[in-house]
């Protein structure tokens, strides 16, 4: 009753407060703001015993356009829908970066000596929410839909399963994947968070059924979806992992307004948002809630690339592209920008600190990554002069950007400032609404643009997909619009390499070639995830992406 009266008391109190002299109130934030990293509190899930029960309320910043993750590319599908589904393999929730563990698979796959046959055994106790048992036929039907979508169904994952020759059910609990060639990324492909396991009979009846309906084998059972408001699910009592999930129920609130997201966490209407907040939001919450807020931070498999329209002069000139790359002080920029937006680490084409990341000592040798910013600026000026530009005849262009504040706007303004510092470049910022921005990038209707890419895993086949020739496999992905058959061969070769060390070497060579030698498409600074959440939430480990570990099976609530 008291809570129900709060709003009306609050109205009266607000009116009184408006007339009262300003002064500190009991709930006013008094804690000093903490800088990036220092506010981070390591999760203590390992030390505490999970407690069952409770409802996890969390924020999803956009609504799912479809329930079928096979057809989706947005976290807005995964965050509310994943708790209802299982995968063949998944990222270990306790690691959430690179360790792949079985989900419905009964152990890791058996791989033949020629690395062309992958055999996966399934757990026998996996049940769909309607009571039917999950069999190898369901896995086959799921993966056939993903790699070979029927009429009327799209599959953005088709390319990631390009190595697959055939998929067969050897018996009720055994699935065999035959590959056309040994693939270094196949393990990651069958652990993709998008590859929900569906029922074969449903897919046979209607391959689009899962776009509007939910029925999986996951730890939670769908309850309701009220468009524009929330998504609710309850514990699956027949989940195949004994003792899990810990939570009784889930409720995801769809909140797109940034201020409302922060106030929802601050007022404890929601306990967590899994995508990431800005450093300012983090500091606001830490100031307001003190030790009631836990913060986890991590480098993110997301970055912004500078795309040069190579169809247009002078960006078809490698010297101009190299100069634009050289003029940027990434090390200084990463440090400064990390205080105001969601970027921090400097890296090549692979995530900094990730398994394929080039060591800083090597990275610093690539043009554009010198520790000495003045050296980069000097070389940039030299190249621009050679290309015919001068202080009286500067290189003038617009820098196309998405009109999204975080992190696009500060990142673009920083980059423009770096370019203009040379005195030979006059770049202006052109921010467009997402649809218009994407249309311009795709149609090569720009000079230089700020492109972006996000993935679920540190996997060169995913991160390098954009680098393929624009008229080949990079069609619709490569917004620098170049064709480079040599680079295509290099990317293909690393994909076929199954020795991890050799593959890393090949990937690092590609980075030197793409960024340093050709400057086809160059990253600015990599994204950095910041998740401030209510300390009651336990069992969540921030990962390098916002797509995986969204089944919520390991999360529990303390202090109920």
């Amino acid at each position, binding site marked *: 009753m008291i809570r129900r009266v709060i709003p009306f008391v609050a109205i009266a109190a607000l009116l009184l407060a408006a007339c009262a002299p300003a002064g500190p109130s009991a709930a006013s934030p008094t804690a000093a703001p903490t800088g990036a990293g220092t506010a981070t509190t390591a999760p203590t899930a390992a030390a505490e015993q999970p407690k069952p029960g409770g409802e996890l309320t969390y924020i999803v910043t956009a609504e799912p356009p479809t329930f079928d993750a096979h057809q989706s590319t947005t976290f807005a599908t995964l965050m509310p829908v994943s708790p209802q589904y299982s995968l063949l393999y998944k990222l270990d929730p306790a690691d959430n970066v690179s360790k792949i563990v079985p989900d419905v698979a009964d152990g890791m796959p058996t791989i033949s000596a020629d690395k062309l046959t992958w055999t996966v055994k399934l757990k026998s106790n996996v049940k769909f929410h309607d009571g039917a048992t999950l069999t190898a036929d369901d896995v086959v039907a799921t993966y056939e839909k993903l790699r070979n979508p029927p009429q009327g169904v799209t599959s953005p994952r088709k390319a990631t399963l390009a190595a697959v020759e055939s998929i067969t059910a050897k018996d009720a609990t055994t699935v065999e994947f035959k590959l056309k060639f040994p693939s270094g990324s196949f393990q990651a492909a069958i652990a993709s968070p998008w590859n929900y396991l569906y029922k074969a009979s449903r897919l046979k009846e209607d391959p689009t059924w899962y776009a509007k309906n939910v029925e999986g084998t996951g730890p939670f059972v769908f309850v309701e979806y009220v468009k524009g408001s929330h998504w609710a699910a309850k514990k699956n009592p027949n989940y195949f992992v004994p003792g899990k999930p810990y939570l009784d129920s889930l409720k995801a609130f769809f909140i797109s307004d940034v201020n409302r997201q922060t106030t929802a966490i601050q007022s404890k209407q929601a306990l967590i948002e899994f995508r990431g907040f800005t450093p300012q939001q983090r500091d606001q919450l830490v100031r307001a809630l003190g030790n009631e807020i836990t913060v986890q931070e991590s480098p993110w498999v997301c970055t912004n690339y500078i795309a040069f329209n190579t169809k247009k002069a002078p960006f078809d000139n490698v010297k101009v592209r190299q100069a634009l790359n050289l003029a940027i002080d990434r090390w200084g920029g990463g440090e400064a920008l990390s205080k105001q937006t969601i970027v921090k680490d400097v890296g090549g084409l692979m995530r900094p600190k990730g398994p394929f990341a080039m060591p800083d000592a090597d990275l610093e040798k690539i043009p554009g990554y010198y520790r000495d910013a003045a050296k980069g600026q000097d070389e940039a000026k030299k190249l621009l002069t050679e290309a015919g530009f001068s202080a009286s005849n500067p290189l003038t262009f617009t820098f196309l950007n998405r009109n999204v504040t975080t992190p696009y706007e500060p990142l673009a303004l920083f980059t423009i400032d770096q370019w203009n510092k040379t005195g030979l470049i006059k770049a202006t910022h052109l921010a467009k609404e997402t649809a218009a921005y994407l249309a311009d990038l795709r149609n090569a209707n720009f000079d230089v643009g700020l492109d972006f890419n996000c993935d679920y895993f540190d996997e060169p086949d995913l991160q390098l997909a954009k680098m393929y020739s624009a008229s080949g496999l990079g*069609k619709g992905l490569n917004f620098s619009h170049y064709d480079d058959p040599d680079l295509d061969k290099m990317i293909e070769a690393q994909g076929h390499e199954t020795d991890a060390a050799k593959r890393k070497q090949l990937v690092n060579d590609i980075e030197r070639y793409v960024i340093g030698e050709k400057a086809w498409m160059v990253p600015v600074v990599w994204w950095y995830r910041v998740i401030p959440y209510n300390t009651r939430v336990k069992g969540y480990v921030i990962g390098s992406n916002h797509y995986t570990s969204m089944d919520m099976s390991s999360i529990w609530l303390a202090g109920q």
Partner: protein
Amino acid sequence: MGRYLIGRLLLMIPTLLGVAILTFILMRVVPGDVVTLRYSQSGSVPQEVIDRERKQLGLDKPLQDQFVDFMGQVVRLDFGKSLWTDRPVTEEIGSRLGITLELAILAAIISTALAIPLGVIAAVKQDTWVDYAVRVFSIGGLAFPSFWLGILMILALVVWFRWAPPLQFVPLWEDPVANLAQLIWPALAVGYRYSAVATRMTRSSVLEVLREDYVRTARAKGVGETLVVVRHALRNSLLPVITVISLEFAFLFGGLVVTEQVFNVNGLGKLLVDAVAHRDYPLVQAIVLIFSSVFVLVNFVVDIFYGVLDPRIRYS
């Protein structure tokens, strides 16, 4: 009168048709489409997937063919399916219309409840500190955007009370307290904004009437000041006030677009913002038609009310 009403009703058809055509053109002129946006979260979606989906949704058809399809649907009052969710547009709108309508009515009540008493007081106390205070208050309403006021309200509630308006809508008939706990705040933010014009109109209208001969006569007869103001001045000054309040209601309905977003109220305004951002043509067209219809209908009703409120007004 009957002919006039029929004429006015018929005039609504070309108006709404014009709105529909204009919306169709404007949405197509803006670059980008729903398919590009659907796959905008990840850079690794091949062009082939995008082309295939565009074909499925009919977005690859020439503009004139799309226009013919659209007009066919408008004539049949069939708004089609949302391009973003593939659900019927009527279903998408249905659940939200009631919320926005309730919020608009609540805001209109707050606006009227503020405007009439404040306007009358300001007129009666003309050129005193009370009058100045009311004028500053109403100018504040015009100056502060309601969404900004909304952000401040939420922040104040969270900082001072560690409480924020509920995120989940509950219908009024199920739980009036929970319902009002969510909607009262945006209604206050929007209502205050729209009370400003009506307050100023009430003030000037009452001032004008207070100078009339019959008011002087009433006072000369010894009628009490309260009675003079309420019975003689207020009644006779209400016509322009009602006009303004009614027209403001139509504006207010559209003005909820941003405020709903700030308060996360699941209404038509929030749906429209999302639909525009997603380039969901059928949904945008339908919502804009609803807003336009409200505007046209309110104008129509105001015109009828003129005749009812003032017997001197007759239509031919």
